[in-house]
């Protein structure tokens, strides 16, 4: 047993942190926030140059051919830096589905362009509850219909993968966004640095990804895998909140002493540390399960996801509290993390979806 990232992986993490501390300051994130942009295009171009868009894409398709462990450490840094880029949509989700279920032709046509940054993609995560996803899109003869539904990053994506129902069950389909039948309109989001769009499909032309009727399994599995990566982003963000809270309360004085010397504040920060340690430890196990396709990936992903979501919410709210009135201002960065915490924890289904998925899996394991 060895429960630690390798020296090489830690080095990649260190490089990522240094790079982002220059290219993705919170000042930079605020440019996206205040400007209403859908992403930080300059940062995205740098990320493409580093090859991150192809981290887990095999070299034969133009990627770096690294394992998911390397992607996990990068994800933690992206989360810490609040990176306003669509890597989760494009890489953790869309690329992953093509790698898992795409035909050879689809892989050859899309993966090199995804890796090289020529195209961006996203996946519609259907509404979820009770541990299941409920697709709202209908498929008929290669075309898709749907009323407006939420899709992260759709407005900056070249194609979208959606789950749609037909007589054969739920299948996955790829639609390019350059057609008139795909109507994408902007909307406001809790976290404006990660944009959401409303997408309506009026008989959009599509191609199937994977087999008929196997869409729920593939998508469920893909979301499990993405959940581990997002958990690392959440752990990174939560750690940033703890660092920020510690820094501020150490330098802020009240009643003639540092606020951080009051036990109510110390215990608050200790609880933040505890929540992060539990979440990080579950995320590590998730990373191992993800990189080895372990049998208990679903359990591992759900545990990582639930504890990381809880930790990020707890840390981002208590960081605001520890900052006093300053924490409630637009000017201070506390709310950027608080917003991102909500965004990430809703992105792949809320806690209700994950708790149900976890308990269903426990039941299944014990029935066997």
């Amino acid at each position, binding site marked *: 047993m060895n*429960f630690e990232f390798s020296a090489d992986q830690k080095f990649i993490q260190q490089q990522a942190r240094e790079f982002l501390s220059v290219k993705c300051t919170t000042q930079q994130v605020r440019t996206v926030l205040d400007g209403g942009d859908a992403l930080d295009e300059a940062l995205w171009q740098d990320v493409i140059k580093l090859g991150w868009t192809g981290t887990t894409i095999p070299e034969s398709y133009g990627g770096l051919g690294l394992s998911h462990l390397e992607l996990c450490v990068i994800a933690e840094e992206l989360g810490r830096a609040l990176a306003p880029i669509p890597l989760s949509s494009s890489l953790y989700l869309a690329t992953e589905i093509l790698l898992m279920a795409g035909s050879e032709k689809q892989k050859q046509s899309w993966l090199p362009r995804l890796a090289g940054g020529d195209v961006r993609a996203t996946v519609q995560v259907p509404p979820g509850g009770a541990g299941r996803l409920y697709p709202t899109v209908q498929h008929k003869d290669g075309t898709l219909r749907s009323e407006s539904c939420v899709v992260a990053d759709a407005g900056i994506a070249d194609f979208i993968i959606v789950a749609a129902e037909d007589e054969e069950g739920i299948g996955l389909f790829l639609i390019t966004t350059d057609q008139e039948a795909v109507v994408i309109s902007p909307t406001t989001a809790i976290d404006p640095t990660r944009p959401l769009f409303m997408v309506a499909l009026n008989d959009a032309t599509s191609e199937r990804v994977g087999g008929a009727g196997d869409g729920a399994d593939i998508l469920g599995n893909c979301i499990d895998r993405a959940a581990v990566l997002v958990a690392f982003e959440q752990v990174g963000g939560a750690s940033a909140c*703890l660092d920020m809270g510690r820094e501020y309360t150490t330098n802020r004085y009240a009643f003639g002493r540092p606020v951080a010397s009051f036990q109510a504040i110390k215990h608050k920060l200790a609880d933040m540390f505890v929540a992060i340690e539990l979440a990080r430890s579950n995320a590590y196990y998730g990373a191992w399960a993800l990189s080895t396709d372990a049998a208990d990936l679903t359990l591992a992903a759900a545990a990582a996801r639930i504890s990381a979501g809880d930790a990020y919410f707890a840390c981002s709210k208590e960081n605001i509290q520890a900052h006093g009135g300053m924490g409630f201002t637009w000017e201070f960065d506390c709310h950027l993390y608080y917003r991102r915490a909500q965004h990430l924890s809703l992105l792949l289904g809320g806690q209700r979806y994950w708790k149900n998925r976890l308990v269903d899996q426990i039941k299944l394991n014990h029935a066997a």
Partner: protein
Amino acid sequence: MDFNDTAEQAAFRAEIREWLSVNATARQPNQGVQDLGSVFRRAKEWYKKVYDAGYACHTWPKEYGGGGRSQIEAVIWSQEVANYAEPDGYFVIGQGNCGPALMALATEEEKRRLLPRMASAEDVWCQLFSEPGAGSDVAGLRTRAVQADDSDWRINGQKIWTSGAQFSQYGVILCRTDPDVSKYRGLTMFYIDMEQAGVEVRPIVQMDGGQHFNEVYFNDAVVPDSWRLGEVGGGWSAALTVLMNERMAISGVQPNGFSEFLQFCLSAELADGPAIDDPVVRDRLADWYCKDAGLRNANSRMLTAISQGGIPGAEASLGKLVGAAMNQEIANFVLQEIGPEAAVCDEQFAAMQANFQKAILFSPGIRLAGGTDEVMRNIIAEQVLGLPQEPRADKGIPFCDIPTGSSS
């Protein structure tokens, strides 16, 4: 990153599985009530058997009665023995706290003489730190050790909450040797013969009715100077070594109640259907599963760090802090789910041999023993996060001038 056993670890696991299947007692659905004395005797017998097979104190060097194995192998042992109705970690205070203190501070001759008997549980050891006036602030202790002309030390005073003192041959004791210097500098650590005339042990009845801990009175008890552990006045740093080992020793075996809770969820029928299908139960099951998994995985990370040469830091406080509180919350939750009949404590009638009824009464103690929840948070805040200490009223003044209160 790799969670699977290496070939060597897998071989070790197979070996002990085989040994346990022959030598250990299987879990029985209905284990009756046993008095403390008989539980203790059974535990001693079991440890002797384990020792003779070479499976005691896995991480200790072989010459001191240990297995000369790694922390990871110790964990494998704990995982496997957990499948049987045998005590693991029963002598954790001696083997987990006192053993490492001797390892660090005793002479070679003492280690070879004392440690193997501790490993086999032929000698039981207790830890005599807390006093009526000094628990969280243990450095405020008052039990005096004075060196007589014959160079032996005479011990006078009172210890309290000493777990297992009634069964112990030896104890590791922290005493004040100089009251005129600041409190941390006037302490000295010894080991002491518990069976001598000057030591009187009186069991204390706990709130759950059990009697695991004791008051211990010292009336001119004698300790030879050669039984001193560390320098005169060096007791505090010696004690910190012990306490650090304690947190590590319990962080892996700290009961958090999850496996019993899972068993409840999978087997219980509530008034309106199986527990596992109840939305409220499911919500809690998910939460506690995540905490339990988080603790296990955090422990694995700590072990990895140790096996790569790191030292366990205050992070080890995590298991204690989270597990103890969780245990109590689980007990309360299950009792409230069951409803009125859960108030019955009788093992014959209450679900799972009254596990949760016992847990609700025992769990408050776990949040106190080995450092309270509040002290654990202080440790994390100060030692891990580096936050400033609170202003203190006992700094820089001689021990004898420090203010005291009237609650004993």
